[in-house]
């Protein structure tokens, strides 16, 4: 373990960055079953709906986890069902399969527990730009923010919680067959 705190921070950030890049590759190479292995069994996957509200009322800008409607508010059981559905080959919304590219950027480690040099849990904020092209001209560009909690397990990091803030109030895509 490095004793220089700057070096420790760089190494941690590098590890997290690599985790995200591997994750993006798994998704864009449609290796969804392997992607599931990057999630803890009790993972929380939540994407609130955004509202247009008056300045000063930001508390109601996003729908609430555990109470309101959302784009996603689920755990591994449902995520696994989604992956199984994609694998059937007759999930028509993804047959033929769409082409996607996940660009993950602005990665910041906000908190490392118990400490940077020996972190077993980190809170990370990032941005995503997901490009999807389907059949010929059906194209979606979905952009937003992610707030993640990653935990260290023997072999590396796993995603324990992900909150996805899509920067749209009316979703300008016909479906969300993709993962963020």
């Amino acid at each position: 373990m490095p004793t220089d705190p700057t070096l420790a921070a760089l190494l941690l950030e590098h590890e997290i960055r690599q985790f995200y890049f591997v994750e993006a590759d798994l998704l864009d190479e449609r290796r969804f079953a392997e992607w599931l292995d990057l999630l803890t069994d009790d993972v929380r996957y939540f994407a609130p709906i955004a509202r247009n509200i008056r300045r000063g009322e930001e508390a109601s800008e996003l729908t609430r986890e555990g109470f309101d409607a959302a784009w996603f508010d689920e755990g591994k059981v449902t995520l696994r069902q989604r992956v199984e559905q994609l694998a059937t080959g007759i999930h028509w919304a993804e047959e033929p399969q769409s082409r996607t590219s996940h660009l993950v950027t602005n990665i910041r480690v906000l908190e490392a527990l118990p400490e940077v040099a020996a972190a077993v849990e980190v809170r990370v904020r990032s941005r995503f730009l997901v490009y999807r092209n389907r059949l010929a001209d059906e194209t979606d560009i979905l952009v937003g923010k992610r707030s993640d909690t990653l935990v260290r397990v023997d072999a590396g990091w796993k995603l324990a919680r992900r909150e996805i803030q899509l920067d749209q109030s009316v979703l300008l895509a016909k479906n969300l067959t993709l993962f963020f």
Partner: protein
Amino acid sequence: MHPLVDAENGTISREIFVNPDIYAEEQERIFARSWLFVGHESLIAKPGDYITSRMGEESVVVTRGRQGGVHVLLNSCMHRGMKVCRYDQGNTRLFTCPYHGWSYGIDGKLVERPGQLVGVPGFEQHYHGELDRTAWGLRHVGRIALYKGTIWANWDADAPDFLDWLGGMRAFLDFALDHRDGSEGSSEAIGGIQKWRLNTNWKIVAENFIGDLYHDISHRSVDLVGIGPSGGKGRRDAQRPRMQIGFPGLGHGGLGETPHNSEPDYAPAWALYPEVEAYYRELHEKRVRNLGDRPRVTMSVGTIFPNMSFHGRQPRTILMAHPCGPTQTEMWRIYLVDADAPEAVKDAARHYYLRYSGPAGMTEQDDMENWTYATEASKGVIARRLHYNYQMGLGHARPVPGLPGAVQNGPMAEENQRIFYNRWAQFMTQAGWDGLMPTTARALEDAD
């Protein structure tokens, strides 16, 4: 009747799904005089609460006045058109236009009638006190109806009563809006409305939800996986046999059970959640007691003409297919639960709804793929010369005992679609209300 709709023979020109002129005419002939669902009272619980909603292409503000009444106003400044409210929800006493500052009052302390103009910058100095402020309040809809928490509006003050519009379909809507224990109303909307766009004509959505068991095959992938709240295969728990039941002359219909006078045995439907299962089992007992031998129906899915669809069972939701151009629709989904249900019950329902419906819904996703590319493949000049086929079960409709004005056509038919397009053609060809409403609906029900 209408040159493009031959509902008698079950063929309908593809033009009505892609043609911009027909679409423009629909806005006038259908959306400017139909009862349209604009929201749920639980979304505007307190005085001054409002949501912005839609009626056809138009934005409206749905507000609760200080005296508790519900008002629906065109969201467009009477001065020179600016959208006065660009928030999705909030609480206010005034809507002030950002353009030149005209301000409209909502609460009764400021105005006699919500929407009245209460503030005009430069009224004395520049208008010389001569503007007729009472004449330039926000435009109200012609009629409003509140029904078991749902809010409906109609631009046409001469439109028939909402309950006449609903006719016998009311029993099926009741099933979705009533408490699971059989007591009236008392469902509420879960906070947050899913809104999304897709490239299809609004009628493709309405005609699917009016009862299309035939397309079950398109959902085979989710059925193989199984997402129902009891585990096992299928996308919902087993249902008792359903019929296509429709209302000729009104344009509504759905999949449901015909009226019966006793409650069938309890069928477990939430086995994965013991606490929830126990709750529903208990409600079933209450329901048996509450309803006694009164007639009742059940339903899974239905459409109220023109563009409000709802699911009464698993899941339990309201869907609006707002027209957004000849080949674009903005979908709004609201999810319903019993207001007094324990949190665990609401939570299990919510999780199930979200994996079933909406853009991330493992069922609805495949519908939207089909609707989108059916629309795209119907646009070309050659494709447009053709007609869609709605001939299933043609000539096999029969009356429904105990449900005046209704017909049923077995589990799989395109009777309801023919009924829907017949109604559509009536609206598109007849300007006035004369002959548009069957005298049957409520009159028959009252006589029953």
